[in-house]
Structures are given as C-alpha cells and as structure tokens.
C-alpha cells in the first residue's frame, strides 16, 4: 500500500449542498471511514469535514478529496456511492473515474477569480483554527499592532472597493467620513439582511467562511473607531446564524473580540441581531430602526448614518461581501485588488447565477467581464436548447438586459447605462418561455408587498403599477397604458423617500425599454408572445394526435376535459382554468396552447 499521510475529504454543505443531501453524504463518509479503520492505518491523518458552498450548485453534492495535496472532485454524490469511493480511491488509490467532474466543471472555474470565495469551500466554517491556518486574522493583527486607522482607510480607499450591497459607495470613503465624525460612541453594522429574491451570496459567505466577515468587521471598527458592532442577519437563514454565532464565540475565546483584542488597547464587541422578515430593512436607516426594535421604516437622509445612525451615533453599515473582502485586500495589498476590474469598478464581484442556465451556482468574476462570458463560458449556456431572452440583474431594484446586449461589460456604470444595476448580485437567466411583462409584474408584486407604507409615492404608486400590470397580463390592457406606466414610474422614482421606492420601477422601465413590443402584444392583440400569461392562453386538444389515453382527463382539476377511452378528448374552454396540467401530462403533444 502506498504511504499517504494527509487525506482530507471536503463535502459541500452550502444551501444547495444540504438540499441535495450533503448531510447524509458526510455521515456516510464518517461511517465508512470509521468502519474501515482508515484513520488508524493513516495515523489519524484522514478527516472528512463540511465546507461551505463549492460553487457549482447544479452538480451537488460535490465532494473534494485531497490526498497529499492532490485534488479530485466528485459530482452528484449520493450516500450509496461513498462505499466505493472509500474502497477504490481512499484505500486503493485509484479515483472512481465515472463519477469525477467533467470538462464543464473545469470551464465553470476558468474565467472566475476568487477573492471573497477563495476560502469558501476550503476552510471548515466551524473551526477558527482552519481559518487561521490559511492566514486568517493576520491582517487584523497587523493593522491593530503596526498600523494606524488612517493607514487602513488609505489602503481600502486605494483598493477602490465599492459597497457590494448594491449602492456601490466607496468603502474607504465611508470609513473616512465616520472616522472624522467627532463623537465617541460609534458603531459598525454588518448588513446580512439579504432580501433580494434570487440572491444568496451573503448567505454562502457567512455559511462558508464566517471568520472573514468578522475579521473585516474588526479592521473596519479599528479604522472608524467603533467599539461595538452588530450583524443584522435574516432569521430565515438559520444555518448562517448558527455558524456565525459559533464563529463569534470562537473569536472571543481567541481574544480577537472583546476587551483589549490582540493585546492592544482596542476593544470591540460584536452582537447578532435577527431580522424578522422585512425587505426594506436592507435600507440603512430602516435597518437602524429595526435594530432599535421599531418598525423598520426609513427616514430622510441627510443626516447620513455615518453622522447620525444607531442611537443617534455615527454608524458605518457595510454589506457582508464588502467586509469579507477586507482581510484579503489587506493581506495581498490594495494594488493587487485594484488590478482586477475596470477603472471605476475595481476588484471582483460574487453573483448568484440562476434561472434557465445549465450551471447554476455561485460565481466570482472580475468586474468588467463581458456578460457573454458569464452566460456561455461559466454558465455553460441555456438549458434545454432554448433561446436566451434576457438576463435579469439586481433583483427587484434592477432590470433586464436583452440577449442582443450580451457584449455588455458587467460593472456598475455599464449596467446602469443599460437600465439595470449590479445590485447585490442576483443574476437570473430568462429564456424564450419567460414573459417580460409577467417578470415586471412579479417584481412589482414583491416591492408593493414590501413597501413599508411611509411615503405615498411608493405605497400607492407601486399598488397602482401592480394593478395596471395585472390588468395587462390578464388581457384587459387599454390604449395609453404604456404611457401611463412610464409616467407613473418616473413619478415613483423621483419622489420616493428611500432606495426601495426609488428603484422599484426599474424592472418595468427596463422591460419597457427593451421589450416594448411585448407590452404592445398584450395590450393590443391580447396575446402573450412567450405563452406565459395564463389568462391569455387557450388550450385545445388536437384530434389527429390525441390517442384518448385519458391522462389529461385525470390530471384536469376542474373537470373541463371529456372524452371516451381511445377516442380524441375535448377541452371545454369555459370550464378550463388554464392551469396547464393537461399540457404537461400529455405524452403525445396533442394539447395545444396559444
């Protein structure tokens, strides 16, 4: 037997990894390893642990096996496959070829640059020593012991890092403004209230490498002179909360948090505050109100939180991804970070690539990468041979970029020129079956429900927008609706109190800009070109194709289908509720939809 003295098995336990059965796979490895006494023969050098999101969620459960530093990756691992992997690979030394990742997996990583995600999937998120082994907390130690707060601010300013929560404000500048404020009690808040539907970057960072966020907070607190910090995190992320709690406790034990941290005169305490489910609390002033225990309603700015924030004290609010970047920027230097990206958008950005794309997952790319490279090289193209229609970025505050603009560079300015935003990093790929009017309605539905109700333009405006879009998708659109929509959107955008209202019309405006003809088809011809708006569809059974198998008859929930066995069936359109069940269940493509 070959002597191997360092074996590590890493099992993806990101949100998708767990959903695909990560825990069962980990358990299977643990059982299999103890059953075959491998740790004994290998002198306890073989370990299996959970790691955060490995990226290519579409192939979960992903398992990485390191033998003396050589890495092998398995995809779609099920507990039943573990026995063979252990027997043939761990003991025998020959990887199980047919379960290894293929070329598509390699391509997924080729154009990515990992900074924030560099250690996500490498370190055990529940073990501080694993993070320390990779150089963790060295940046904080160096800054606190050897440098001044102004040095830190200068370094972050020079890196060009902009806030990754969506607004893109320069992080170094924000810190400087808070530093300059003369008050004594200052706060730093990590905004982990990731509320955009279709975005899970912050969750993956906290679940995969919580210590990088804590280290970022320590450095930020030192820079601005804050002694208290909060992490405001969604209660809907129980695993992230749990891992963050254990990471904070470990950091206290190690002397990195609390009194006189790193044996310097600096004090810094961090507390977790659980959000209670309100999208608007991602907005800074609403978040502050929520930490104070009130309804999360924004207030006018100025005064900005850097001057008057939590309990009326200067407060810096940074997003999870922004803070997780900090230790790596300090470790590798601002020049290194600034070498990625474009002139005005430096560094890398994490995106959650989802929707109708082959390789769904979490990606990190240099700013300024062409959208085309993300969709085709990293994403592997559109699923099921369909045509790409648009890419939605920035969630409910963003917009849709049409397929013919794929050469567009992904950075703050270019996306904004195209009528969308980088936002927090959701990237949803839409194909020919997606109706753009329906997408706009979906997002307005979301913002309307999440509007806090404080200011009229947002509260009433989004409601009226939704009613109009609802009417259009149901075939009751009227001449002049498009112009009315545009007028309303401009009104809401210019007169709403906070970012939620000011950006809420973006999904409508951008689809109006790039897909006006779809709105016209709904309004004038009462047709949905993508065949997605169910009120505009009619279902019909083609007699020449129907074999009379009765599958549709059984599937129909409203009893709208009749027919004798082995004879063509018929749909009564006045009873039909257009649920599409018959269309899906028919094996002979005899149900027609138009």
């Amino acid at each position, binding site marked *: 037997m070959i002597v191997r003295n360092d074996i590590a098995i890493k099992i993806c336990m990101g*949100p*998708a990894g*767990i*959903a*695909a059965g990560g825990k069962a796979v980990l358990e299977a490895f643990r059982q299999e390893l103890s059953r075959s006494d491998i740790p004994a023969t290998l002198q306890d050098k073989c370990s299996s642990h959970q790691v955060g999101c490995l990226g290519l*969620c*579409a192939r*979960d459960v992903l398992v990485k096996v390191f033998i003396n530093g050589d890495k092998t990756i398995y995809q779609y691992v099920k507990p039943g496959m573990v026995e063979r992997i252990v027997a043939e690979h761990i003991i025998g030394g020959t990887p199980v070829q047919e379960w290894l990742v293929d070329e598509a997996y390699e391509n997924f990583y080729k154009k990515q640059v990992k900074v924030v995600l560099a250690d996500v999937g490498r370190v055990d998120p529940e073990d501080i020593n694993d993070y320390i082994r990779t150089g963790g907390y060295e940046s904080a130690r160096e800054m606190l012991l050897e440098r001044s707060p102004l040095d830190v601010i200068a370094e972050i300013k020079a890196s060009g890092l902009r806030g990754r929560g969506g607004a893109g404000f320069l992080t170094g500048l924000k810190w400087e403004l808070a530093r300059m404020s003369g008050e004594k009690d200052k706060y730093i808040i990590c905004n982990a209230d*990731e*509320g*955009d*539907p*279709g*975005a*899970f970057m912050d*969750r*993956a960072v906290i679940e995969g490498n919580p210590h990088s966020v804590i280290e970022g907070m320590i450095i930020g607190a030192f820079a601005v002179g804050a002694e208290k910090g909060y992490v405001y995190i969604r*209660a*809907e*992320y129980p695993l992230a909360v749990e891992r963050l709690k254990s990471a904070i406790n470990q950091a206290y034990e190690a002397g990195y948090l609390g009194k006189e941290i790193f044996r310097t005169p600096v004090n810094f305490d961090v507390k977790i505050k*659980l*959000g*209670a*489910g*309100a*999208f608007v609390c991602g907005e800074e002033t609403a978040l502050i109100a*929520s*930490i*104070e*225990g*009130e*309804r*999360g309603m924004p207030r006018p700015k100025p005064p900005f939180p850097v001057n008057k924030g939590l309990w009326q004290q200067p407060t810096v609010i940074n997003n999870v991804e922004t803070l997780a970047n900090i230790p790596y920027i300090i470790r590798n230097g601002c020049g290194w970070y600034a070498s990625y990206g474009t002139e005005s958008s430096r560094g890398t950005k994490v995106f*959650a690539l*989802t*929707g*109708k794309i082959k390789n*769904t*997952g979490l990606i990190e790319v240099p700013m300024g990468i062409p959208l085309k490279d993300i969709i085709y090289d990293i994403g592997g193209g559109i699923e099921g041979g369909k045509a790409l229609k648009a890419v*939605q970025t920035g*969630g409910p505050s963003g917009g849709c970029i049409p397929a013919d603009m794929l050469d567009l560079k992904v950075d703050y300015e270019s996306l904004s020129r195209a009528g969308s935003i980088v936002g927090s990093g*959701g990237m*949803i790929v*839409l194909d020919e079956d*997606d109706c753009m009017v329906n*997408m706009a309605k*979906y*997002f307005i539905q*979301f913002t309307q429900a999440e509007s*806090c109700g404080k200011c009229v333009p947002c509260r009433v405006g989004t409601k009226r927008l939704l009613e109009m879009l609802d009417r259009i998708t149901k075939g009751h659109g009227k001449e002049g609706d498009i112009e009315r929509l545009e007028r309303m959107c401009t009104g809401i955008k210019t007169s709403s109190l906070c970012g939620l209202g000011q950006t809420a019309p973006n999904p409508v405006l951008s689809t109006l800009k790039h897909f006006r003809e779809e709105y016209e088809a709904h309004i004038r011809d009462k047709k949905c070109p993508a065949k997605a708006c169910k009120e505009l569809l009619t279902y019909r059974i083609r007699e020449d194709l129907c074999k009379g198998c009765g599958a549709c008859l059984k599937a129909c*929930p409203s009893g709208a289908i009749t027919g004798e066995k082995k004879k063509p069936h018929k749909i009564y359109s006045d009873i039909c509720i257009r*649920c*599409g*069940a018959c269309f899906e269940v028919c094996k002979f493509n005899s149900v027609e939809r138009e």
Partner: protein
Amino acid sequence: MEILEGIANKYREGEGNIISLLQDTQEAFGCITREAINYFSEELGIPPSRLYGVATFYAQFRLKPAGRHIITACCGTACHVRGAERIISGLQRELDITENEDTTPDREFTLEKVACLGTCSFAPVALIDGNVRGKANLDTIVKEIKKIKKDDREK
C-alpha cells in the same frame, strides 16, 4: 403567564427590544396572542398599538397559530421562472386554502410563501415541515400531503 413574565423580565433588564420580545413570545407560544400584547403593554408601559405595529410590520410574526404541518413554497425569482406560481395555486386548490388565508380550517396545514430560500439551483423549491424538496412538482408534493393526511388520521 410565567413564561410571559420571564420574557418581560429579560426586556426590563435591557437585554432586548420589542422585536426580540415578540420573537421570544412567538417561539414560546407559536404566535403573538392578544393576551401577550396586553400583558406586555401593562407590565412594560408600552402602548399596545406600538407592539401591534411591530408585530404586523414583520413577516415573521403570526397573529394566529400555524397548522401542524407547514409547507413553505419559495417565490424567489428563480423559482418563479420555473413555475412556483403553478405549484402554489395547485396547493391552494388541494388544501382548499383561499388567497387571503394561509392555514386550513382544521389547522392541519399552513401554506407559507417565502421570498427566497437561497437554494435557487434546485428551483422550484418547497419545504415540507422543514425538509427541502428541490426541483419540486405539484404531483409529488400533493402525494406527500395526501400521505401526511392519511398518517394523521391513523394516529
């Protein structure tokens, strides 16, 4: 009552705010009852309107108890484009829950909608009593619901 007292004391000692007060209450009782609001109001000198205001602002708080089984349907964008709406309307039909309600009259099932569960690669996603059902389709979920109903009846 003792539990309410404990929660109120925690608040009095300055360790919490209205949100954590209500979170503790919901954790203990499953929802925010009228009695709890009145009790805290008198004990802590907070107007009931303020407590009610916070309770109704955040999606997490329930004023009525949830059903014994909770089905959570994700309405995130990725799930939306992969047909979450069809699953939700199908479940509403199956469970006989109207648009404005979320729990069946016999309190057996609650159908919850959430904005995003962050497992977009398995869209559409639903949770049945906290267990993830990825790449969900109406048929298999309905089958599972029928099984739960049957098991409950046999108990």
